[in-house]
């Protein structure tokens, strides 16, 4: 009798090994996808983060005879090094051959009011030496961006000068700068909040007594109040202009900067690491919390963050009930047949319609038709100035909700289909009606799936730009959709959006080269915002999943 020999298990000949090529293929697919994601994030992070890190200011000495791009600059270029790169168009020498060194450096000059240019390029071959600019100040101004210069004195309001060599110069500058900042905040409060409120009330009065030109006593009272506030603001403004910092640009031009226009200053070449870290975090903080300046190329992007957040939240509030209700009808109540089948196909196709088409629809239907009708009915006295009949955050949210509703419908339907038949029957056999079964058993069990749909919808909605340009996004919104004025949430207001901000900075700003760092920083922020929103939804889902563990998901 043959006794089978005891064999060692040969893993290379195992049946599972036959599928190996496909393991490699699928792993390669995933690796490629990951590589692209990591690469994209890497580019954005590596370009976005250094924007906030203080850079050194360099003095670049050129060889004699080389033409200096800086007007009146002599043989010196002073500024921050932006990048070193190989020339796109090679430079040829007299013999028509390429020079050996084709690298050039890009320098950020600042002082746009003096030079009229922001950047200078210099050939590596033309440079004799590069050194730090000693004692130079980096002045961030309200207008014209950054200035690099050597301060000579502070001129006080009574005309006395505090020379830069004086012992009290540094402390005085710091103190005056702080005072100027607090005055600036005061002016903004008066002009934006208080005068704004009076203006809107005056406007209401004017509208309500249409045709009647005799000023009402209330209007007179408001006008007096306005005059008082305006005088107050004018006085503060005069104080802002009275004190000035006198400095010399590196090219030797003497300039006067009123302290009211000085946002912050630093000595970039004398910073310790701790100072740099402090400045870095301060820069990030002001980027996140301040309003934009200088056609959005300077300052912060707080309104855009807030607008994106508010719009996405409003969209979620609109899309979830709408999508879930539609899915419940499709799944539970509609008689499954050709018609419902067609409806499903239509819903899925809706997800593939170009987003700009939704924008056009939103403009035509929500803004002009619905908004126009609301204006006719409730805001007739303001016409022809539209209230709801123009783009606004509410219409934008509804347009995006319409665009993302297929995602929610499909996710909800799938989640409901995955609820086991057994527990539905269990509920019905307990004497529950169909609606009670849906409400108490099916919907809670499908909540994690519904939230998955919401995550996808939010990710798509928050990053969308094209339709928003038609239904309410603007380059610069004068006020946020949420403020202290009754009724607090102003859904009809236009808003700013990070996605549009990127487009605007990168392609619409007067100097897109200067805006490039901001583009990366904004893109990074938009990604972070989407991640934050998604994370919130995912965490809720996990919590629910745990609660309904063993259920459908």
């Amino acid at each position, binding site marked *: 009798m043959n006794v089978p020999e005891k064999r060692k298990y040969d893993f290379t000949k195992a049946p599972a090994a036959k599928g190996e090529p496909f393991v490699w293929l699928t792993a390669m697919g995933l690796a490629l996808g990951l590589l692209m994601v990591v690469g994209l994030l890497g580019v954005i992070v590596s370009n976005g983060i250094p924007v906030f890190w203080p850079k050194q200011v360099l003095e670049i000495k050129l060889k004699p005879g080389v033409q200096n791009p800086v007007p009146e600059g002599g043989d010196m270029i002073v500024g921050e090094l932006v990048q070193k790169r190989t020339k796109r168009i090679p430079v040829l020498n007299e013999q028509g051959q390429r020079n050996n060194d084709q690298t050039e450096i890009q320098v950020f000059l600042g002082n746009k009011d003096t030079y009229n240019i922001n950047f200078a390029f210099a050939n590596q071959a033309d440079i004799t030496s590069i050194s730090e600019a000693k004692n130079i100040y980096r002045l961030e101004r309200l207008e014209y961006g950054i200035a690099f210069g050597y301060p000579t004195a502070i001129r006080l309001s009574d005309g006395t000068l505090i020379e830069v060599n004086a012992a009290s110069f540094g402390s005085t500058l710091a103190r005056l700068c702080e005072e100027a900042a607090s005055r600036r905040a005061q002016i903004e409060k008066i002009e934006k909040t208080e005068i704004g409120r009076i203006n809107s009330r005056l406007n209401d009065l004017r509208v309500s007594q249409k045709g009647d030109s005799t000023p009402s006593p209330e209007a007179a009272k408001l006008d007096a109040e306005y005059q008082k506030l305006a005088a107050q603001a004018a006085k503060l403004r005069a104080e802002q202009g009275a004190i000035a910092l006198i400095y010399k640009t590196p090219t030797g031009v003497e300039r006067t900067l009123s302290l009211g226009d000085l946002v912050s200053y630093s000595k970039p070449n004398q910073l310790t690491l701790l100072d740099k870290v402090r400045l870095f975090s301060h820069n990030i903080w002001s980027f996140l919390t301040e309003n934009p300046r200088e056609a959005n190329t300077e300052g912060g992007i707080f309104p855009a963050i807030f607008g994106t957040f508010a719009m996405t939240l409003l969209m979620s509030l609109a899309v979830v009930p709408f999508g879930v209700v539609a899915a419940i009808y499709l799944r539970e109540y509609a008689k*499954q047949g050709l018609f419902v089948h067609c409806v499903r196909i239509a819903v899925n196709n809706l997800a593939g319609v170009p987003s700009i088409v939704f924008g056009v629809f939103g403009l035509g239907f929500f803004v002009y038709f619905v908004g126009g009708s609301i204006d006719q009915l409730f805001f007739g006295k303001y016409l022809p100035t539209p209230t709801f009949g123009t783009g606004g955050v509410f219409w934008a949210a509804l347009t995006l909700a319409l665009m993302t509703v297929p995602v929610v419908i499909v996710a909800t339907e799938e989640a409901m289909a995955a609820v*086991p038949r*057994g*527990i539905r*029957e*269990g*509920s*019905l*056999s*307990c*004497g*529950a*009606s169909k609606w*009670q079964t849906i409400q*108490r*058993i099916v919907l*809670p*069990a499908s909540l994690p799936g519904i939230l998955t749909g919401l995550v996808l919808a939010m990710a798509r909605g928050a990053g969308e730009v094209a339709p928003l340009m038609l239904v309410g996004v603007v380059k610069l919104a004068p006020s946020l959709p949420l403020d202290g004025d009754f009724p607090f949430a102003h859904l009809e207001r236009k808003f700013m959006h990070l996605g549009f901000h990127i487009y605007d900075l990168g392609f619409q700003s007067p100097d897109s080269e200067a805006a490039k760092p901001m583009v990366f920083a904004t893109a990074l922020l938009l990604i972070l915002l989407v991640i934050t929103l998604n994370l919130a939804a995912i965490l809720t889902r996990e919590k629910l999943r745990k*609660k*309904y*563990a*063993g*259920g459908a998901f």
Partner: protein
Amino acid sequence: MPAVLSEPVSSDFPTTVNTSTDGRPDFISIQNFSFFYGAKQALFDISMDIPERQVTAFIGPSGCGKSTLLRNLNRMNELIDGIRHTGDIVIHGHSIYDPLIEVISLRKRVGMVFQKSNPFPKSIYENVVYPLRVAGQKTKTILDETVERSLKGAALWDEVKDRLHESALSLSGGQMQRLCIARAIANRPEILLMDEPCSALDPVATVKVEELIQELKSQFTIVIVTHNMQQATRCSDKTAFFYLGRLVEFADTQKIFANPSNKQTEDYITGRFG
């Protein structure tokens, strides 16, 4: 007032509580009942009387229609499209197909336990009070009382009384099935339908459920579908044998297993086919 308006549009299924100790022999009366899934006929002209407060077992090979008949007793089959029936099912003199009666009120009178235990993804407490909640009961004392009574009735109280608010999905398989029984009896139905309640349970849990059936039969009329001959002999008073959608034989359990009058029945219970 015109007669049409004076009549109620819909009403609850009448209560059938019997205070006398004797069970009515024709408590559930199935009368010439045929049932169709679309064009396919699943049940052929079935007539039988199921006695009150006894256990009636439905046996037969797979696909013989016993589950279909069981699911007709509380109209659970109506969830399926394209079904129809002829004949009638009458519970204590009231047709369950009376158009004036809401199906929900019928299901409140007829509890059901399924083959695969189906606790809701809620706490143990909420599972048991679910039938009361959907009926609109909100009084906490009544709910608490029901939980204790039902769980004791389902022989589960001692095992779970300290963790009533934990998820029902943390229970073992046998406990889950007993929880489903507790849920089915929570709203005091008169009839309890059990569709192979032990087929997914281990022998120990099966014994527990069978003992439970014996205890419950003093209060409920129980109809049980089973594939297990021993189970039918152990816990039922009457047995009905179905084959290919027809009722072949219906008699006392002892008679069916000891002395079947039909050849097919004998072949099936002795294991010669099926």
